[in-house]
């Protein structure tokens, strides 16, 4: 229900809407006083715009209305006819990520088949040939910071195309291989870096586009990995028909298919042009955009319209955080799409000035952010907890006397269960009943407990139960890795954060298998690997307990810097504002409420 308190100029503000309420409000707020201009600030939730009315369906608490601009909703019939823009809808990026996942993981998993062929033909000991595989899979993580830099400079689409080109070229070059070192470079290095580019670009693009349904889209994309069980027999068939060189040639053609799918990763507009100053008061002004829960709440003061002589430095209308402002985009994705789109069309007279400092080439800021360490700690340990049991499950089954045929059922059942559980977990997380990292931590704890109980499983039914439970919980937390990072950090800086986090995870991935092998050699039993994995899984959510503290620390730091900036600027309208919501973990630094500014 709307409980407006009367405000100056006939405006009802601050408007607060109860949670889950749907209200209709005609926001024709004309005010004679410039200082009581109002801007509507939509925090999150769905809004649809039709015919001069703005309908808000907020499922958050407060809508802060803050005096900055005047907003005139266009009268019904004057609205431009809403044309259906031919525009690849947002859900096309999810197939791109799925495809990347299928190809990348498929290639990595079928490397074992190539291993045999390489050993026979090219020669070299088992250890030398396995270097190729490990370089390939570890570079996928370790190359991430470099790729993040490239992505930020060039954009996601060129990076993705570059990645596809690297992979194709690497496969092509490998057909001419004559020795193991050649293969290490052509297959290991080139393919590894190519996969890294592809993966980073696709992940960030998914985060930028599929906002409200990020967890589910991520889960759908990851479920592409479930299809990789088809690639193994396919690869074997190809090798039997064409030999390993012919197979690599055909693979390079298949990987070339990633080029068109990368071209679908259309860049998303990140900045709205400026509002024209005082001249047109009747024009619809720009509603300021909205720091959604996934955005970095960088302070974006709005330009006070109608301020006469003191020309404030021209600033972009949008918060740097608005990214889904492409006109015609599905309104479920952003709060006030149509008004923004109008504003885009109307606000074009001033050149756009970036308020943020020019970004350095390599952005080391994640390393100064406590949230980054929280995330990386959990990412690292959860990766260790995931990989080690996978390596040792079949071996443990064999030592318990289960035949390898039955043991391979574990893998297939676990794979299917994991896919299903990822989808379910992604869907649940998207319902927003609680913060995503709560789910993440819960799955990790359950996974750890399951692993700790594994040494008790000594028969086939018990081990199968363990495999199913493990797959459920692992699928649960794997689907949420990217959404949790996006929640913590926002989409703007996702590249650098993801880059560095992947780098540290890569160290774990490189060290994980040898560590597991050493554990077996030292203890002569596989039970210890499971205990180790359980301990890692239990350690990993510990860092999330520090998250509220870290948020508060960041907020204080940002408030201090904002206040000092406000003092420097000395103009009343320049305070930024943010929408705070108790449920969403936002990194908005600004909590400037209407009364305080």
């Amino acid at each position, binding site marked *: 229900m709307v409980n407006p308190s009367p405000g100056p100029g006939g405006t009802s503000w601050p408007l607060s809407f109860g949670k889950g309420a749907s209200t209709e409000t005609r926001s024709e707020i004309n005010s004679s006083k410039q200082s009581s201009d109002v801007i509507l600030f939509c925090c999150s939730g769905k809004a649809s715009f039709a015919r001069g009315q703005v309908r808000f369906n907020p499922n958050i608490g407060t809508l802060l209305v803050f005096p900055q601009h005047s907003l005139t909703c266009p009268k019904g019939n004057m609205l431009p006819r809403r044309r259906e823009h031919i525009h690849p809808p947002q859900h096309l990026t999810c197939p791109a990520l799925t495809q990347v996942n299928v190809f990348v993981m498929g290639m990595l998993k079928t490397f074992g088949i190539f291993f045999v062929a390489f050993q026979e033909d090219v020669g070299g000991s088992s250890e030398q040939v396995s270097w190729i595989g490990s370089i390939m899979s570890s570079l996928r993580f370790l190359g991430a910071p470099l790729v993040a830099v490239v992505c930020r400079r060039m954009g996601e689409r060129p990076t993705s195309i570059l990645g596809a080109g690297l992979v194709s070229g690497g496969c092509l070059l490998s057909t001419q291989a004559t020795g193991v070192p050649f293969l290490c470079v052509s297959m290991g290095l080139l393919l590894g870096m190519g996969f890294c580019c592809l993966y980073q670009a696709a992940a960030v693009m998914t985060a930028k586009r599929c906002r409200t349904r990020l967890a589910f889209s991520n889960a759908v994309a990851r479920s592409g990995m479930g299809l990789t069980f088809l690639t193994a027999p396919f690869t074997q068939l190809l090798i*039997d*028909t064409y030999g390993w060189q012919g197979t690599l040639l*055909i693979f390079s*053609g298949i990987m*070339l298919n990633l080029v*068109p799918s990368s071209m679908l990763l*259309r860049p998303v507009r990140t900045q709205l042009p400026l509002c024209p100053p005082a001249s047109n008061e009747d*024009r619809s002004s720009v509603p300021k955009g909205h720091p959604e829960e996934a955005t970095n709440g960088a302070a974006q003061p709005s330009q006070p319209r109608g301020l006469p002589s003191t020309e404030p430095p021209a600033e972009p209308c949008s918060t740097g955080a608005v990214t889904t402002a492409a006109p015609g985009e599905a309104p479920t994705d952003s709060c006030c799409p149509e008004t923004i789109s109008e504003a885009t069309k109307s606000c074009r007279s001033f050149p756009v000035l970036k308020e943020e400092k020019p970004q350095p080439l390599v952005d080391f800021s994640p390393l100064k952010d406590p949230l980054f360490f929280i995330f990386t700690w959990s990412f690292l340990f959860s990766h260790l907890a995931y990989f080690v049991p996978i390596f040792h499950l079949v071996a443990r089954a064999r030592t318990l006397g289960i035949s390898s045929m039955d043991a391979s059922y574990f893998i297939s059942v676990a794979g299917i269960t994991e896919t299903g559980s990822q989808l379910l977990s992604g869907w649940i997380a998207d319902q927003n009943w609680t913060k995503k990292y709560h789910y993440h931590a819960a799955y990790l704890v359950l996974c750890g407990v399951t692993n700790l109980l594994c040494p008790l499983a000594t028969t086939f039914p018990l081990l199968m139960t363990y495999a199913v439970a493990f797959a459920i919980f692992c699928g649960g937390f794997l689907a949420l890795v990217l959404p949790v990072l996006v929640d913590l950090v926002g989409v703007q800086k996702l590249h650098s954060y993801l880059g560095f986090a992947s780098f540290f995870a890569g160290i774990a991935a490189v060290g994980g298998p040898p560590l597991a092998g050493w554990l077996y050699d030292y203890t002569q039993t596989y039970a210890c690997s499971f205990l180790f994995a359980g301990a890692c899984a239990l350690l990993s959510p510990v860092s999330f307990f520090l998250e509220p503290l870290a948020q508060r620390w960041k907020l204080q730091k940002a408030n201090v810097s904002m206040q000092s900036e406000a003092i420097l600027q000395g103009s009343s309208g320049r305070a930024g504002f943010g929408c705070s919501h108790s449920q969403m973990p936002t990194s908005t630094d600004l909590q400037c409420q209407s009364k305080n500014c």
Partner: protein
Amino acid sequence: MKILQVTWKRGNETIKHINKTENSWGIQLTISENRKLGSYTCTVTGEEEFSVAFHLQVPQIEGREKPVISYEGDSAILICKSHSYTPIAWTWYMTNGSEQIAINDSLMLDKYIIDRTDANVTHLKILKLTKEDDGAYWCEAAYELGKSKGKLKLKILSLMVPLKPFLAIVAEVVILVPLILLFEFYSKKKRAEDEKEFDQIEQLR
């Protein structure tokens, strides 16, 4: 069952010296030459007749069931192993029609190379492959008591064979890319038209 008679035979020839104990009837053989190898049968006659055969043979060499695939102009390596028993010598044969011709690598140095570094393993490397090299190859291990052969198949493909699917896929990609570019260009034009229309409406207000 009461055992009336136990006979040891090799082929049709009956072996006379049987070591008999209370429950077993055995024969002792000294295998000193190839002729002594073969199948030895023991037949037990009572109310019913049972017989069992023992096959004494030289170690069998396993070839490869799946063909080794290689390309024209490339080189291929055929490998035969016999780990538990070390043969005296290895010989390679290639099949020409129905005959088996021994491969003499000292005669044709630039075509065949036989690696004899390890006595348990033999490698035959064939260089400069052509279509005629396609077919079955035999590796024969000679032991003191006899020889044993393993079969390997070599299949030679021309470069065009995998190239065709590759080119088909590349063609598909080459068609898709301009399609997507056209699509984008078209939608950008539409957007520009819409913006112009909106501008006009705005100015009317």
